[in-house]
Structures are given as structure tokens and as C-alpha cells.
């Protein structure tokens, strides 16, 4: 009876999810709606003159060649970063999951890069890859490679991919390692007794059992490259040369913060939001079917 008096009615469940609901509404839906509203406006930087223009910002955007270039750059960049950071993270996790001496030390050191802020990571790599000054740049030049990321778009892309991958590997490593340790030893031992070699054991047992982790990481990694690499690109290349490393999110930042064209920038973030939502929905719809929970 007493229990019922306290937990009566339908109010409590709502009360319990209220904090989460409030956070989502204030920090996610409210800004998203504001971006949507802003994308229909043409406004000066100080907000002194505002004109409602319907879809003009979108139309203008879809008529600029640079926007399509940014879409292409984003997909190439995301694919490269996701593939390299996932495979390297997995490789390192498999290596660190073995019984070797000092494994705890290796594991700790492999996590450290994640604690480095993207912009700081970028600066570290700029020092190493700066033509004429950096160690790695000099080594490359001595071995006959004309390393020049300020002018060569491919080199600039390689540079930002390296920084972004380096920054993300630890995160992937951590999750893969946890995933690997959750796989029951008995299953692998049974396979070994049946005569399966390590490679075969990995592909037929470990990899499929790791699929929930992999699926989760794919989504997190894609979101990471789409949004969180802004700082890396800004410090390493500034989107250059000639737009070769200008991703969609960097263009949002450039047009909004540097160009103070808030309407155009908002229209881009709305499109970007749609792309990422579509991409995630696609993955849940099709890729998730291959996941064994």
C-alpha cells in the first residue's frame, strides 16, 4: 500500500527521464532548431539587419563549385581516417591482448594519445612535417620526396589523415581491447584443440564476436571525422591548399566564423546534419544486420 502511495500514477517515469529529456532539448534540439531558423535568413554579422529569404541560402550553396569539392573531400577524408584508425586500433588491441611481459605498460602508453587535444596533436605534427624545419619533412626530402603540404593537396591530405588517425587510434584500441577480453577463452581454446590456426581462429571466432564493438566504433568514428576534426584541420592546413582539405564541417566554421555569413553557414550545418543522420540510419538498417550480439 505504502509503495503504491509513493510510486503511484504515471508521473514518476516522466520525472525520472526529465533530466535526460531536458538536456537533449536544451543542448541538442534547441540549437538544431535555431540553426534551421538561421538557415532561412540573410543577416549581417552584428544581427542589425535581417531578411527572410526562404531557401535562397541552400540554392546559393548548391550552385557553388567549392561546396561539391568539400563534399568529396569529406568522404575521402572520412573513409581514410575511419579505415586506418579502426584497423590499426584493432591490430594494436590484438597484439596487446596477448600474454607478454610488460603488457600493462604497453596498454597504458597506447591510450595516452587520446588525452592529447586535437589542436595540440596538430601542432606536434606540424612541427615534424614542416618543410625545411621538421624532422620527418627533412628525412622525406633527403630521401627524394618533394614533401610540400602547403602547396601539394595530396600531401596536405596525408598530413591531416595522419594526425586524425593518430588522435583516434587510442579510443578504438581501448574499445577493441575491452571487446577482446569479453570473448570467452573457452571458445578460442576449443577451436585451437580442433586444430584451427591463429589466423583462422581470428576470422571465424574473434572477429564475428567483436562485431558489436566494431559496429559501435564505426558509427563513433564517422561522427568523429565529420565533426571533431575541425581543430586538426584548422591548425594543420587551414583547409588548404586550394580547398584540398576543406571538409564540410570546416567550411561551416569558415563561412560562419571567418566569413560571418551566418545564414549560409547555418544552411550548411543543416545539410551536414541530414547527411550524418542518413549515414547513421543506413548503418543501423543494413550493417547492423551483420552484427552478432
Amino acid at each position: 500500500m505504502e509503495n503504491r502511495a509513493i510510486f503511484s500514477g504515471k508521473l514518476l517515469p516522466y520525472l525520472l527521464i526529465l533530466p535526460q529529456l531536458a538536456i537533449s532539448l536544451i543542448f541538442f534540439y534547441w540549437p538544431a532548431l535555431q540553426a534551421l531558423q538561421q538557415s532561412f535568413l540573410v543577416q549581417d554579422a552584428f544581427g542589425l539587419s535581417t531578411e527572410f529569404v526562404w531557401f535562397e541560402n541552400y540554392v546559393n550553396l548548391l550552385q557553388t563549385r567549392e561546396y561539391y569539392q568539400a563534399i568529396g573531400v569529406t568522404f575521402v577524408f572520412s573513409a581514410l581516417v575511419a579505415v586506418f584508425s579502426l584497423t590499426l586500433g584493432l591490430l594494436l588491441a590484438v597484439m596487446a591482448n596477448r600474454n607478454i611481459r610488460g603488457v600493462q605498460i604497453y596498454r597504458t602508453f597506447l591510450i595516452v594519445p587520446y588525452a592529447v587535444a586535437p589542436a595540440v596533436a596538430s601542432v606536434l605534427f606540424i612541427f615534424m612535417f614542416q618543410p625545411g624545419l621538421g624532422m620527418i619533412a627533412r628525412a622525406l626530402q633527403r630521401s627524394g620526396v618533394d614533401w610540400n603540404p602547403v602547396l601539394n593537396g595530396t600531401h596536405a591530405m596525408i598530413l591531416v589523415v595522419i594526425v586524425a588517425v593518430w588522435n583516434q587510434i587510442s579510443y578504438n584500441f581501448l574499445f577493441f581491447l575491452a571487446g577482446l577480453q569479453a570473448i570467452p577463452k573457452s571458445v578460442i581454446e576449443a577451436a585451437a584443440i580442433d586444430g584451427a590456426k591463429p589466423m583462422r581462429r581470428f576470422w571465424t571466432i574473434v572477429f564475428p564476436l567483436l562485431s558489436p564493438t566494431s559496429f559501435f566504433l564505426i558509427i563513433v568514428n564517422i561522427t568523429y571525422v565529420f565533426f571533431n576534426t575541425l581543430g586538426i584541420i584548422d591548425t594543420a592546413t587551414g583547409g588548404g591548399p586550394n580547398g584540398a582539405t576543406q571538409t564540410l564541417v570546416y567550411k561551416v566554421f569558415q563561412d560562419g566564423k571567418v566569413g560571418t555569413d551566418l545564414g549560409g553557414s547555418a544552411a550548411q550545418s543543416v545539410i551536414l546534419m541530414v547527411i550524418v543522420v542518413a549515414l547513421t540510419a543506413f548503418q543501423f538498417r543494413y550493417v547492423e544486420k551483420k552484427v552478432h550480439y
Partner: protein
Amino acid sequence: MALRQFGAAAAVTVALALATPAHAVTEIQWWHAMTGPNNDVVVKLANDFNASQSDYKIVPAFKGSYADTLNAGIAAFRAGNAPGIMQVFEVGTATMMAAKGAVKPVSELMKEQGEAFDPKSYLPAITGYYSTSKGDMLSFPFNSSSMVLWINLDALKKADIAAPPKTWPEVFAAAKKLHATNPTCGFSSSWITWGLIEQFSAWHNVPIGTKANGLDGFDTVLEFNTPLETKLLESIVDLQKDKSYDYSGRTNTGEGRFTSGECPMFLTSSAFYPNVKANAKFEFTAVAMPYFPDVASAPQNSIIGGASLWVMGGKSPEEYKGIAKFFTFLSDTDRQVYLHQVSGYLPITKAAYEKTKASGFYEKNPILEVPLKELTNKPPTENSRGLRFGGMVQMRDVWAEEIEAALAGKKSAKEALDTAVSRGNAMLRQFERTAVK
């Protein structure tokens, strides 16, 4: 112990507060983007002003890079909380002046507050950049520099070049010779668009855009894709092929290539001086920017770079009174002389320039006079007073992108300049539309 110290400090503070007569001090926020030694200069100026009188208190606050400071100011204004004084870099000028009501023109402020203010006492090449076409000063020049050609004299001697080059053909020839001793870079530059488009046009007395480079109106149209600019870019692209010229990026991050000795000729800001003095392990000098001798009007005069102080709108009369007094304080001849000599930035009044000259300072530091000689070479024309294009911060990136495409061999010099002009014009039309009429 710590607690006792805190208690003592608190007691002293309270005592002081009680001892000071009840007297309203007007606080004025000053947002700026100065780091290192220049930050010390800002703080010292504020302290000196605060100590010189007891009615106003200037409170400086560092807000990050120039772009960050501008964005912080814009955001604060939108939230109804703008600072009294805001330091804005030269390319933000059009954005600020377009915001009628958000800013208060300096000439108007000084007149309203009855401060002695003679626009003619300032160097026209500096104030012209921040004035209307009629000569009304919009913002107060704070830190100004110009562009000069830095020369590594040791490398020049090694390459058997008798004297620093004066003209572009001489620069090209010297770059090729220097390439023999410096295979990765004979010549380079920072702030690529400031040098190759903005300064180049002023120095040759040719327009960047119509309407006096935008000073006479936001309906300006870019027109720097003429044969003269194309000739310059073509020559540079040609030198880039074997690295007689080597691109060092859009901003000044590549300046270390000069001080390290890698690039013996470097076209960049005169404000590079303290850095070169501290780090170069070779004999160096700086000379005036090169020009094409077949252009009759060249050299004209150079334009400035740097930043100015904007007064924000909607403040109380007391605050405006304090800001006006602060600007008078800054214009003081001795203070300008001191600022010029300690920071390497240019003096803004004629009197300060004359006084420094008379003191024999330039005989010991000839490099510091080079940008001043460039700026005052001839009276500014409508092509060389400055430039005012909306969205100039991003415009520089757009122009740089096109120059990069030419340097990488993806476009011809002419194509690159044509695209830079057409993309820039699209941005200008967008800006014109949002500017408050």
C-alpha cells in the same frame, strides 16, 4: 598560514576600499588580441592611463587571435554586452563600419566629447585606412606595420649579388642566383594576398576594386585581374617550378624559413623585426618592396597592416568621455615615440615620427624607418589609401586558394586571378546586401 595571509590581504583590501573616498570610477573594457611583449605594452598603457587620473579605469582583456577577438565582440554585441573598446585587425574594417549603430566613429566621439583632435596631425597613410573617403576617422589606429623585403646579406654575398634588389626583375634574377646556394628556397613570402595583391596594387597605384578600393561604397567591384598582376603571378609561378621562389603559406607561419637561413629573401611584415633581431644568425637588412620599373607611377606608397581600436555603440556618456580621454592620452607625442621604439610598430602621428627622426634613432635602427618611408613615399591616391571590402577576412582565404592553385600548376595565373575576382565579387554582393543601409 595561507589562511592568515588571505585574512591579512582581505583586511588591507577592505581598509583601502574604505580609505578611498566614495567616488564612482567608470570602468571601460578594452578587448584586444596582443600576445607576448605586445600584451605587456597594452597592460602598461592601461595602467599608466589609470594612474594618470582617477575618474576612469581601462580594463584590458585578452580575447585570443584577431579573428577570435572580433567574433567575441560580435557575440557580445548580439548579447547586448559589448566592450567599450575593441581591437580589430585591418581586414575587419568593412565588417565594423558596416555595422552602423554597433560602433561609434572616433571622429564623432572626439567632437562630442570636446577633446582636442586634429585629424591632420596623424600620418595620412595610416589613418586613411581607417577613415571615410571624406577623411572622418572611424577607428583609432593602434598597431600598424607595412610590408618590406627582408634580405640575408651573407647569402647575397655568397651568391655574388652586389646590392639588395630594388625592382621585381632584379628580385627574380636574384632569386635564381640564390637558388644555387639555397636549393629549397631562393625567395619566399608571408601573407601572400597582402603582398601580391593588396600591397602590390597600392605600390603600383593601380586599383584592387572600383570605388577607391571600396572606401567609397560597398557596391565596389574587384578588378585586379589585369595584365600587370598577371605578369607578377606568372613570374612567381615560374620561379616556383624549381623552388627559386617557394610558397610559405597564407599567414606568417613560414617566417622561420628566413631566420633559419633557408630562404634568403623574404617578403613580409615590418613587424617581423624583433623576431629577426633575436633569431637570425647572419647579417640582415630590410629594403622597400620591389616594383616594376616600367609602371610609371611606381613606387607610389605602401598601405598598412595591423589593427585599430573601435569604439562600440550604445555606451554611457561617462564611458565615452573616458574613451575619448584615453585616445588623447594615446596620441601624446612622447607616448607614441616610446610605443614605436619599444614595439617596432609604426608611430601614428607626424610629430612622433619627426621626433624619433630628430633623436637619431633611425641612424641606429635604419630598418625601422623603411616602412615609414614606404608609407610616406607619395601622398596617397584613391588606389593607395587602403581598401575596404566586406568579408575581407575570408576573402583573403579565397584569393590565397586561387594563388595556391596557380602555384601548384592546376590553373594558369590568369585563370586563378579571374576566379579570385569572380568569387570575391560574389562575396561582395552578399555583403552589400546585409550591410545596414
